[in-house]
């Protein structure tokens, strides 16, 4: 069995874990060394796509992850501009995956990082994530596909990496154009160049190893293939050990966890939406960034969908709010009614996409 696990997946998992603990020690929000959903949401805030004051910062990690993948895939000659696999459907799926992630308060990668930080709410999220993956796998077995991609022009492949670099240069040259949080998670960040460099390394490794949070569980369930899930476990163990070494670990609890709420039903349902949507997309939000870096235009569109989903999540108050303590009273956070409705709209949309694109409604094709 061990020969079926690519050592690069384990190495990448360990490096992601160390990088996450390091970035938090250097200023990123707690249990948020990396969070693709939160960081895209912060970028949506920085670029005025949403105006929630606590979550606005142009996160260099996103730029680094995409660019690291571009550099690595160019070096290994794997960079290939391709697109054409149901882009509008992918945009919508990206948006709902983002809404689910912001209901839970984290993408699958941050879920694992939160688990390593002792946040029991993330374990509830894990159960939901797994259920969502099972639903997605059910439809994959029923022939679900968003149809094939085709080779396209180079501009398509470089579109997202180029736009991110351009925005990052603007961010450094004219920061006044962008919004910055004065308090809250958006106000907490590691030095920009450290974030960029760390993310470049992580992005390159993720490209090489194909690390994917959703792929790990999916392949384990579908093919008894434990290659990718080994990276998932490596991140969890590394983050846990890292927190213990830095004396940040205070045991497992569901209460008073950083940027986390204990409305468990919604932690669960939010991550069902993320797991299901990510299986339909073929990869978690992190993997979408890496694929976009390799020239995949469909993943670039998915990332734009996630950005718009993040803007909707805050403009329509769908996102979860963290547990808090006011005047000594513990207040359980969670989501507003609008968020609850959005999760169920998400389920309905995913069900329609799943049914229409699998063989369940089609006549048996030869």
């Amino acid at each position, binding site marked *: 069995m061990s020969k*079926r696990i*690519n050592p690069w997946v384990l190495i990448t998992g360990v490096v992601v874990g160390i990088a996450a603990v390091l970035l938090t020690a250097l200023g990123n929000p707690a249990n948020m060394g990396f969070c693709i959903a939160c960081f895209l949401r912060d970028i949506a805030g920085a670029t005025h796509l949403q105006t929630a004051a606590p979550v606005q910062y142009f996160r260099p990690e996103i730029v680094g992850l995409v660019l690291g993948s571009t550099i690595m895939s160019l070096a290994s000659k*794997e960079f*290939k501009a*391709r697109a*054409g*696999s149901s882009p509008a459907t992918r945009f919508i799926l990206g948006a709902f995956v983002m809404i689910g992630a912001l209901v839970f308060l984290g993408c699958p990668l941050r879920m694992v990082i939160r688990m390593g930080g002792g946040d029991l709410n993330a374990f509830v999220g894990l159960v939901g994530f797994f259920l969502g993956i099972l639903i997605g796998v059910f439809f*994959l*077995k029923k022939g679900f*596909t*968003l149809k*094939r*991609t*085709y080779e396209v022009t180079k501009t398509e492949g470089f579109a997202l990496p180029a736009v991110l670099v351009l925005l990052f240069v603007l961010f450094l040259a004219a920061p006044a154009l962008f919004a910055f949080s004065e308090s809250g998670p958006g106000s907490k960040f590691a030095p920009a160049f450290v974030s960029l460099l760390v993310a470049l390394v992580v992005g390159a490794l993720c490209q090489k190893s*194909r690390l994917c949070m959703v*792929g790990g569980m*999916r*392949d384990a369930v*579908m*093919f*008894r*293939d434990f*290659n990718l899930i080994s990276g998932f476990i490596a991140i969890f163990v590394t983050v846990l050990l890292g927190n213990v070494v830095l004396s940040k670990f205070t045991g497992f609890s569901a209460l008073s966890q950083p940027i986390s709420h204990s409305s468990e039903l919604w932690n669960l349902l939010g991550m069902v939406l993320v797991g299901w949507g990510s299986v339909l997309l*073929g*990869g978690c939000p992190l993997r979408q960034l890496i694929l976009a870096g390799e020239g995949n235009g*469909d993943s670039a569109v998915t990332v734009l969908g996630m950005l718009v989903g993040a803007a909707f999540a805050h403009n329509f108050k769908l996102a979860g709010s963290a547990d808090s303590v006011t005047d000594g009273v513990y207040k359980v956070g969670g989501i507003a009614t609008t968020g609850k409705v959005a999760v169920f709209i998400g389920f309905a949309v995913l069900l329609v996409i799943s049914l229409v694109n699998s063989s369940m409604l089609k006549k048996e094709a030869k």
Partner: protein
Amino acid sequence: MIDARGQSCPIPVVMVQDAVKKGNNPAELQVKVDAMVCVENITRYASSQGYTVKVDEADGEYTLTLKK
């Protein structure tokens, strides 16, 4: 010959899995893909099912020959 070109992860592996099941473990299968990641994924699955895999590359496309 299974044509899995342009299909994103993990559909090519699902297509091979279907062919293996429907053909009742055929002695030989050929699959065409156009990304290295699919070559890796199919190879991992095929070897777990007891197949040896030969990979031929031409113009950025790969033909995998699975034999038992």
